[in-house]
């Protein structure tokens, strides 16, 4: 059995970078996290958009979508955002000098159409994770748009009173 080098993924989690290598060796599929092997069996449930993985014998079912350089994973009891890039993505980003976590990762976008009621931050202001950035009125309710992580506000794309569409860029956020 020859050991081929597998595909590498760079994952940001809990403030650390993990290198996950998925290897198709002759005898099977191997998943290594920072070089440590983990027995994995993964399968998709047809028509359901769900994946089930049995990892270290534990059974996990989750949905996954990709957005702004991160995997949005929904487990039974939590939704988590996991920045991830593959080798090609990483090389491309390093070549252009982009920030970690994907080129678009710095843009906070609107998840729904609404009207900006109030802008709570200004350019170059440092913000902590969870800090309200602006208030968006939608569905007759005022919704606080919060910072997904700590960082420094780059551009503020909107102003109070402005109507925004779903997906519109609101604020850009650079790493601290």
């Amino acid at each position: 059995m020859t050991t081929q080098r597998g595909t590498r993924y760079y994952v940001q989690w809990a403030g650390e970078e993990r290198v996950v290598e998925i290897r198709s060796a002759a005898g099977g599929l191997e998943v290594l996290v920072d070089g440590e092997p983990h027995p994995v069996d993964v399968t998709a449930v047809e028509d359901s958009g769900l994946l089930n993985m049995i990892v270290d014998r534990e059974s996990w079912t989750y949905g996954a979508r990709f957005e702004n350089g991160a995997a949005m994973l929904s487990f039974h009891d939590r939704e988590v955002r996991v920045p991830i890039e593959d080798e090609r993505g990483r090389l491309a980003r390093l070549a252009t000098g982009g920030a970690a976590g994907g080129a678009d990762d710095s843009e906070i976008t609107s998840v729904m159409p609404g009207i900006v009621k109030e802008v709570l931050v200004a350019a170059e202001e440092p913000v902590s994770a969870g800090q309200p950035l602006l208030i968006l009125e939608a569905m007759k309710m005022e919704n606080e748009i919060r910072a997904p992580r700590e960082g420094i506000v780059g551009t503020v794309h909107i102003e109070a009173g402005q109507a925004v569409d779903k997906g519109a860029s609101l604020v850009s956020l650079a790493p601290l």
Partner: protein
Amino acid sequence: MSAPHPITTLLVANRGEIAVRVIRAAHELGMRTVAVYSDADRTSLHVRMAHEAVRLGPAAPSESYLRIDRILEACKATGAQAVHPGYGFLAESAEFVEACEAAGVIFVGPSAAAMRAMGDKISARATVEPSGVPVVPGATLTEGADDAAILATACGVGFPQLVKASAGGGGKGMRLVREEGEVLDAIARASGEALTAFGDGTVYLERFIEEPRHVEIQVLADNHGTTVALGERECSVQRRHQKVIEESPSPALTPELRARMEAAAVAAAESCGYRSAGTVEFLVGADGGFHFLEMNTRIQVEHPITEMCYRVDLLAEQLRIAQGLPISFGRDVPVPAGHAIEARICAEDADHGFMPSTGTLGAVQLPGGPGVRCDGHVYVGQEVGLDYDNMLLKLIVHADDRATAIERMKRALWETRLPGITTNIPLMLRTLDDPRFTSGHYDTSILEGSAPPAEEAADLVPVIAAALAMHRRVRRTHVPPASPGTRPAPWVQAGRSWWNRGTWGS
């Protein structure tokens, strides 16, 4: 007993889960049902479940579910003798009740007069107070009263108390007074602020209920002189005055307190000549005192927890009463047993400012098994939009005791999958594990500051899950489920045999 006013066709003037709930009750009673719908709800479950369906108009409620004229036209076109309003929309519109009456259509609910009497807090308070229903003590103090009169009035209201401007709002001139010694100073300042702000120095004193619990009593009243109470629902888990988790019985009530509150609720209902199902809401203080808050003249979202404990069907009772029949059990209210909890599953991202979540529902998976009830309107392919309330599903559990009911609810929440949108299920699970909730010592502030658990570096599950999902996407590999006659894609097969080797040594 044959019904004095038989209903063979019922129109349901609502949408979402309550329309589905009404249709279920009506079908069990052998009624034919008519759904109404807006353009946004053309494929909704209530449209598909009803025997007939009539379009009302565009999505906006003012052009559809609030169109009294269209609803009554639909009754006429379909031969519906009665209309059930559900909750929300026209459920508490006395105007609608009168329009139904004028059109010869039975409104499944109370009279317009009872609805108006309970329609706002001031008239409701005036209606129930003569019947001895305890209201939050309060009194008005006009400008220029002398100190002795002020002190007498303030002590009559009791402490702690809030002093507020009668004319104003928004906290202007509001003061919290904890004891008699603070009264004169506080009232002088409040009155002054009120005068400056509103040109009127009149202030209103109201007892301040500390750490209030929100407890409501279910009542049923028929046209045969029977009004009964069916215990309480504890509704203190709230966010922005929206109830999120309810339970029955309340962990805070003693049998003696329950009996007094039930008597007060029946008195309140009788004070306005109430008919049908209704709910009397009370604030219960940390001292065990209770005070009338308001009466909801409709079926409540959280009615199923009462149904689970009492084994009654409140919707069926409403439909019986509307036909002129007595309550099925008369005054012999069933003895309640066990404990019930309801969780309202909403399309929202509770961890990011409770933003509403929109999308298309994929493979819906609802929980089952013993003691679990699902009252929802979700279906595979459902477009969850922003047109209406974002509540998708009520999960209700019942068990012998509160601790088992909590475990059952956690189990049911864990089973529920609504892919395609974000829900408040993670917040629900955290709340059910909160020591304040499990101990039963919680108040309406319990949800404040609830935050998702921190990411832990030792937890590799999200790391591996993200890499596998990206690997699958990058490779564009379709991974079929293992099934007879289907050959698994090589990488799945490979992973499996690798794993077998690693684990089983075979």
